[in-house]
């Protein structure tokens, strides 16, 4: 057993810190810290800074322009980024589509699309879910029918995160309805500017507009935008879902969140004493911190196993459940911390006006609390993750 980072890892961490220090702008980190929505350009500028340093795609092999870091290095990087309130890297191109193209794409697709992901030419979004196909993704009904050198796509995707910024969407579509559901699905890359596509915002419970419906009406997609083979899309989709899960625990986000709660609890007063000295609040905080310390170690244990070449199994499901529960309980504490000032409804629209008094702006933490209820729903709901864990426990395998 050796519980600490190696000297190399520590040196790497210093390098990351120095970079973050030099490249992050306070105007942006403030937005992240206060959980205010970011502009499209905030994300783009951050991607560009990382790309210039060669760090935008930590998980990609060097041959595709990635950093090819070890799992532990990626963990360190993600954690430092979260603690520094860096914007998150938009995952759709980099951690979702990229690895799929690298494994299943044609050489032409790889040489065309991968550089465009890195240099910011394309903003990708993920078109998996449909109104009738959520947890049961294989029930998807958006159809693609081949006509000569193109497919004609009809149907609807939903919950498409940041689809309003995207110019490209990767979709699971049905190309054969005669066979078993999983065997008639294909993986298509679709230009969002094609005639027949309509994007409609969905307003969430916190007033945010980060997800969308995407409608397809006789949308023509060139056949060269099919990834891999027709009707093999389910395999690629599963690869995408089970691969790239190093950051699933969100340890960095949780650490940053915990630090934010502590800051708040030192400045809020309960009677004569700061809230952090209130026994009930302190107990809630300590329990979460204890859970987080253990989870961070679970995460590292799994990462070092992955570095040693073992594929993560049900552990990533465990980390998804525990990680999201911990982050949600941090959001819960955050809203408790501000007491009566949690009640203002601070929608995205309102935030632009800078004259909002501080006490009112505190309502933002409730918005974050409501928004992060999504963590246990998306990316494979926590029920579905438990199903996977239980199945393995009882010998069902994977």
């Amino acid at each position, binding site marked *: 057993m050796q519980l600490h980072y190696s000297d190399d890892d520590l040196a790497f961490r210093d390098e990351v810190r120095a970079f973050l220090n030099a490249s992050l702008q306070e105007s942006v980190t403030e937005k992240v810290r206060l959980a205010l929505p970011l502009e499209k350009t905030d994300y783009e500028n951050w991607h560009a800074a990382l790309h210039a340093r060669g760090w935008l795609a930590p998980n990609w092999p060097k041959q595709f322009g990635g950093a090819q870091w070890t799992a532990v290095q990626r963990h360190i990087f993600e954690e430092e980024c979260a603690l520094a309130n860096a914007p998150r890297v938009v995952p759709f191109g980099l951690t979702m589509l990229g690895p799929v193209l690298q494994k299943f794409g044609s050489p032409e697709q790889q040489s065309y699309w991968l550089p465009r992901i890195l240099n910011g030419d394309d903003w990708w979004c993920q078109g998996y879910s449909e109104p009738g196909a959520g947890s049961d993704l294989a029930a998807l009904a958006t159809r693609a029918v081949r006509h000569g050198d193109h497919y004609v796509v009809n149907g609807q995707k939903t919950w498409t995160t940041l689809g309003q910024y995207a110019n490209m969407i990767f979709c699971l579509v049905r190309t054969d309805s005669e066979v078993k559901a999983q065997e008639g699905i294909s993986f298509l890359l679709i230009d969002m500017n094609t005639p027949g596509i309509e994007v409609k915002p969905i307003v969430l419970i916190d007033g945010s507009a980060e997800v969308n419906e995407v409608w397809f009406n006789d949308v023509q997609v060139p056949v060269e935008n099919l990834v891999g083979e027709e009707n093999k899309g389910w395999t690629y989709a599963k690869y995408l879902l089970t691969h790239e899960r190093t950051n699933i625990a969100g340890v960095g986000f949780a650490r940053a969140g915990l630090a934010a709660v502590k800051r708040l609890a030192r400045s809020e007063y309960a009677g004569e004493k700061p809230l952090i000295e209130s026994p009930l609040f302190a107990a809630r905080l300590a329990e979460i911190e204890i859970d987080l310390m253990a989870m961070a170690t679970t995460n590292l244990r799994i990462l070092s196993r992955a570095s040693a070449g073992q594929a993560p199994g049900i552990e990533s499901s465990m980390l998804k459940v525990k990680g999201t529960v911990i982050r949600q309980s941090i959001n819960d504490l955050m809203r408790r911390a501000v007491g009566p000032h949690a009640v203002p409804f601070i929608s995205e629209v309102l935030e632009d006006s800078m004259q909002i008094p501080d006490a009112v702006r505190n309502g933002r933490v409730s918005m974050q609390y409501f928004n992060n209820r999504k963590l246990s729903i998306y990316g494979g*709901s926590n029920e579905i993750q438990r199903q996977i864990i239980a199945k393995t426990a009882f010998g069902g395998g994977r």
Partner: protein
Amino acid sequence: MNFELTDEQRMLQDTLRRMLASSQGSAWQPLAEQGVFAALFSEQYGGLGGSGFDIAVVFEELGRAATIDPVLDSALLCGWLIAEVASETHSELLADIVSGEVQLAFAHTEPASRYALSHVETTIEQRAQQQVLNGQKSVVVNARCAGYLLVSARDEAADDRNCIALYLVPANCSGISMYYYEMSGGGQAAEVTFENVAVSSADCLSADALPAIESAVAAAVVAQCADTLGAMETVMSMTTDYLGTRQQFGRPLATFQALSHRVADMLIELEQARSAVILAAGHLDADPVTRDLHGSAAKNLVGRVGQLIAEESIQLHGGIGMTDEYQLGKYARRIIMADHRFGDIDYHLERFIELGKTPGDF
């Protein structure tokens, strides 16, 4: 023992449920016309009810329908305050509150008071020929529509520094400025600043208002818990309906035991919440210690159950539960935000422990 509502209470419940189910937007006018506010006050104050159970019946229905009108903050809270301290001198104002003619707002919470009722930094001072108010109030619910504010303040010159005075101030007085906002749980509030606001001694309703504030807030706690109870009932029926209809993997979600057992747990807790509300309502007219002990028990328990039901119902709905368009979100926000008013679960747990140290038989 008899846990049945009286015939009058049942009629009131039926009328309200029918009326609110069909009303959209503000229901203030129809509520006033139906004499609903009168149910919140005893005959002594011009009402027709005023017991804890009357209050619980009304607010359970308002919560069930997620009504946004400021019945709790204006009619009940301010009405009870006036009734407690100024029913003789301000009988007309009280009558106007009972009939729904006028709306008020209670300007009491301050930026640093958190949930403590006795923490008041706003001051009232004698200056030359007049008295002036100075200070800052937070989360003044219904400030925008209030004709008058009920403002708590400390008299700088008073012998007893523990005394909190209560002033009735027209909301349009010069020196009052407001920053309005919508609330996540529904309705609106404001941060209110008082800068040398001139008032007269006739505006002082009480020089020692804390006991009255505690009593009115006790009624508000019963109302808030009943409101949450009603909202939770709506949420439960939305959730069972949805799980019965939504199909995934070729069958209704309700047939997955992992989900149906969670619904069962929610229903068990909902019954607990109902009993806690009944206990608090039934002790509203008891001595202050007994009253507050049960109030804190209910606010703590209902707060916990509310969080469980709000979070679980969103989770069991999946993505649709996260949307603004679907009604669940509005209810979930109402339920969660109720914990941030009149003391949250931790505040009431501590208060319950403190009050439990008082010798007595509850």
